[in-house]
């Protein structure tokens, strides 16, 4: 028998999930569900939209209105859903590849419109589903099956990008700090506008193996060392900052929300 939380919010008949042993996706997914539970949202009023990738398989396991879309387009589908039925709390689950490789354009435009969608990126620094190719978040120099000599691309700072594009809630947490993810997802959902939450997760099977990061236990404990909050980060020297990730709530803004603006326009007739 599963836990009450899992029992209530998961389609338990579809468990165990397809994710590898030690994959962080399950941790992030639970954190999202816990946040929804904490907020006491009605399951019928929640819509989970995902793209394609390991992480995007999460939608199938969750007992809400769920849709597993095409690769990279989750935010565009989500925009259609939210705009059509603003009653729904629309939550997007997406991978780093899904969200910012093929899907980058939808990310920046959804942020620009500040439509009330909460996006959680499962950033495992790799394309997991297709077997370990480097992604736009694979740190420079790291390996993937398509970067056998080390990746020469620079990697995105996703939070920076989301903020520049117009997101009004931007935060980052790691699967080590799973409680932080819960809090951020809660706040992201509460923000009336586009919320962007980057969760740093672990793919021991591909990213870990390709880059000799050890097993899932090594990888998750490493995150403890790497993740620092903004205040601490600012105190670090340039040298010390190398390899560190800033976690926490990085930006909160206030701008008109898209659907509300539309309604305002309609009311003005």
């Amino acid at each position: 028998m599963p836990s009450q939380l899992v029992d209530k919010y998961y389609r338990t008949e579809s468990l165990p999930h397809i994710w590898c042993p030690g994959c962080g996706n399950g941790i992030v997914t639970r954190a999202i569900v816990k946040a929804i539970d904490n907020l006491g949202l009605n399951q019928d009023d929640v819509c989970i939209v995902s793209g394609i990738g390991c992480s995007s398989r999460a939608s199938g396991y969750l007992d809400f209105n769920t849709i597993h879309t095409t690769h990279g387009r989750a935010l565009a589908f989500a925009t259609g859903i939210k705009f059509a039925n603003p009653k729904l709390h629309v939550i997007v689950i997406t991978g780093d590849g899904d969200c910012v490789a093929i899907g980058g354009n939808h990310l920046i435009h959804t942020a620009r419109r500040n439509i009330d969608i909460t996006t959680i990126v499962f950033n495992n620094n790799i394309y997991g589903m297709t077997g370990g190719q480097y992604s736009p978040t694979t740190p420079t120099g790291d390996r993937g099956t398509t970067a056998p000599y080390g990746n020469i691309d620079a990697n995105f700072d996703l939070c920076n990008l989301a903020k520049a594009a117009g997101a009004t809630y931007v935060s980052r947490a790691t699967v080590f700090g799973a409680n932080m993810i819960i809090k951020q997802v809660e706040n992201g959902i509460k923000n009336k506008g586009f919320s962007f939450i980057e969760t740093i997760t672990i793919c021991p099977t591909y990213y870990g193996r390709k880059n000799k990061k050890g097993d899932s236990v090594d990888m998750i404990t490493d995150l403890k060392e790497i993740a620092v909050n903004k205040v601490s980060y600012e105190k670090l020297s340039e040298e010390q900052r190398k390899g560190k990730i800033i976690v926490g709530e990085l930006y909160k803004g206030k701008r008109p929300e898209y659907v509300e603006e539309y309604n305002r326009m309609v009311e003005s007739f």
Partner: protein
Amino acid sequence: MLRQELRLSGSGGQGLILAGIILAEAALYDGKNVVQSQSYGPEARGGASKSEVIISQAPINYPKVNKCDILLSLTQKACDKYISSLKSGGILILDSSVTKLPDRDDIKIYSIPILKTASNGLKKSMVANIVALGSIYELTKIVNRVSLERAVLNRVPRGTEELNKKALKKGFELIKNYRSKPYGEVC
């Protein structure tokens, strides 16, 4: 031996795809025609995994294994899933961790401690696939031993050659020793 079909089954990460490739390559060194293929994708993630090899004197057209002559199963799941695909008269090689033996009396079953040999005897569970190859060889002589050894050395990661040679030998021995036992005990 016009066309021999092997299916190597187990779970993802047990190196069975590589084992299939090595076997196929060995057959190729023998001058045979050969096709190797495998189950693919997320299926292979966590769940059952399989690798298939067809070895034939004649050109191989249909490249898939339907009913196989030889089945290796390293896990119970794999055994349960694929047992029905083994031809009547075929050979089933089971890891001894597979405890629920199939209910078929038209096949020969060999239950041998492949995984244990690999993890205890060799302190490296990653060579289970090579141990299995050794056993398959010893049991079937489906390829030449020289070819098999050459194929192993050609395909395993640099630096692990010795380990793998040893694993292969352990595989041979598993069968040699096994032979001495009466079949009755297994079936």
